[in-house]
């Protein structure tokens, strides 16, 4: 199964790409996705995403198929689905 991941500010690109397609096993969860991204991306990804206690930083926003996810608890257990779009970006409002 493949999902699409886009890394925007403050995350750095992976291999010079903002958008990547990742292969995962059926039944894998959002948590597995994060593990996989961390492997590819190293500590930088994790440091940008997590507070020291593995809570997602309030300065970060995650969107799934255009929807902002605020329910962190369920997010980690969320089963990935084929062709879903995951976006990691900054929680910034205003203009």
């Amino acid at each position, binding site marked *: 199964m493949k999902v699409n991941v886009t890394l*925007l500010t403050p995350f750095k690109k992976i291999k010079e790409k903002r958008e990547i397609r990742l292969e995962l096993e059926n039944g894998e969860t959002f948590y597995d996705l994060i593990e996989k991204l961390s492997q590819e991306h190293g500590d930088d990804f994790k440091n940008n995403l997590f507070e020291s206690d593995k809570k997602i930083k309030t300065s970060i926003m995650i969107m799934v198929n255009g929807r902002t996810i605020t329910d962190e608890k369920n997010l980690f257990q969320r089963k990935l689905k084929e062709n879903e779009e995951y976006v990691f970006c900054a929680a910034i409002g205003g203009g």
Partner: protein
Amino acid sequence: MELKGYTGKYLDIDLTNKEVKLKELPEDWAKNYIGGIGFGIKTCWDNIPKDVDALSPENVISFWTGPFAGTLVPVSSKYTAVAKSPLTGTIGFGISSGYFGAELKRAGYDGVVIRGKADKLSYIFIDDDVVQIKDATHLTGKTTWETEDILKQELEDKSIRVASIGSAGEKLVRYACITNAKNRHIGRNGLGCVMGSKNFKALAVRGTNEVVVDDLKTLLKEVKQLYKDCRGEKMYYGREGTPIKILKHDKKAVLATNNFQKMTFDGAENVSGEKMMEEKVRKIIACEMCAVACDHVNVIKKGKYKGTVGSIDFESLWALGPLCGVDCLDAVTKAVQLCDTLGTDTISTGVTVAWAMECYEKGIFTKQDTDGLELNFGNADAMIELIERIGNREGEFAKMLGEGSKLAAQKTGKDTINFAMQIKGLETSAYPFRVMQTGALGHATCITGAFYQRSGSYQYDEKDAVDRYSLDDSRGKLVADGEDDYTVVDSLIICKFSRRIYPDKEKLAYLWNLVTGEKIKYQDLLDRGKKIYTLGKCFNVRHGFTRQQDYLPKRAYEEPINDHINKEAVVKMDEWDKALDGYYEYRKWDKKTGIPKKETLKELDLDDAAEEIGV
């Protein structure tokens, strides 16, 4: 004046008779209207009767600071200009930053009220307690940047602060802005046009007095921490800047493109904040007493637009980029520079040009109508040429566009009003109605026309805290509470980018306590916010506004958006009506008319307003 932070004085200047009066700020104003837009709305209410044309000498424009300006409180060097808007006919105001607000306060004034019309182009120089109305005919046609430089030179002081208009204001472009510190603007509602109508080119200020606060020692302690917070991790405004929202909005499919016909933009990467930061930003500037520093200045080093300098935030980048189908950062920077120097609001300019582009692509305008411009979406050169013509009011077509999208569409006919993306005449900001419907409601109830900064209700959609594709009667509360809250912020006046450093609103009330000496809770400030907003609404009612004007352009109800994320996204009229009902009910206004009820006004101690609007 019992409360500290204020000077307790303002200037009342009549340009017709060249009369300058020093007035005492009424004692009850601080406790009822806070400052900033609160004082401005009250001034308009007291001075602009029914039927006054916004461009007549009878319109009154006033400039105000709040109690925090000139103190050590971070992000507080703000000022506002308030008048009847020539673009909407409603109350109109905008807020700008820089150094001007603090300087005015140090000159000894909480505000300046300007009435009448000068017999020739003039500027006002406030030098502490010496106030002069001076000839500005030598500044005719000068850009805002030139005006600032010339005045500093001629007054022989580089640190004088100047708020001025460019040729757009002089020539009465209805969305002309007022500019200070070159890149800071009172952009919305055409306040620069009101200045132009009064032959009033600039307000220059030098202030050397101190501003007194109630508890300096404790304030200093608080301020130290706030400065640290300004540099905190969440403060993207300073590091990356708001332009990083381009890619985020594109991914969420809420990036209004080609005059709101699409919600994603193929060229988004080319005009992304990320690319801008990497390749174009050369300077980041802060306002007085601000450690956030959010002003990102692009310098174009090579190519066609070599030498262009422009300060760009998300809204400007969007309006002159994706909205017009333009995917070139150099061109957007050039367009922004033209708006800033000729003196037009970037949002209104972009939305009006985008409307004209859609008309052109639909064959409603031919090359002959556009005075030779091929106005297809994405034609950056044509956009730039048109913006220059609008600012200088050259040619019939650009002149028409200088009236704003609503009047231009009414003149053009052929149902083009359906896609003139404005409410009450004010061109809308970047939060698209059909896919961010709580935001849409906030844009529609907004007393100054379609603007996101008066309630911030789009944030519920941005976070998907509500179903952003539908509406119901519960959304009105979200909008109204946001309006009251933002009214407090705009009256204090505190920069909106500071919201993350005051997550606990009681902190703001505490700062109020330390600065003014009045011990109150944030709820007390909110009550004042509600009173101010309601008085602004009454001003609109006095000038003929009812529920009827709280509707979106037809496109929002009739043309569903479909793409990989949005499915048949459209605002349903029955839901819209329910949402409006919910808003008025929560506000205790009459549902049928959208007008505040007598008992509501009485509760807010606005009995005279009730009498005046006949409820």
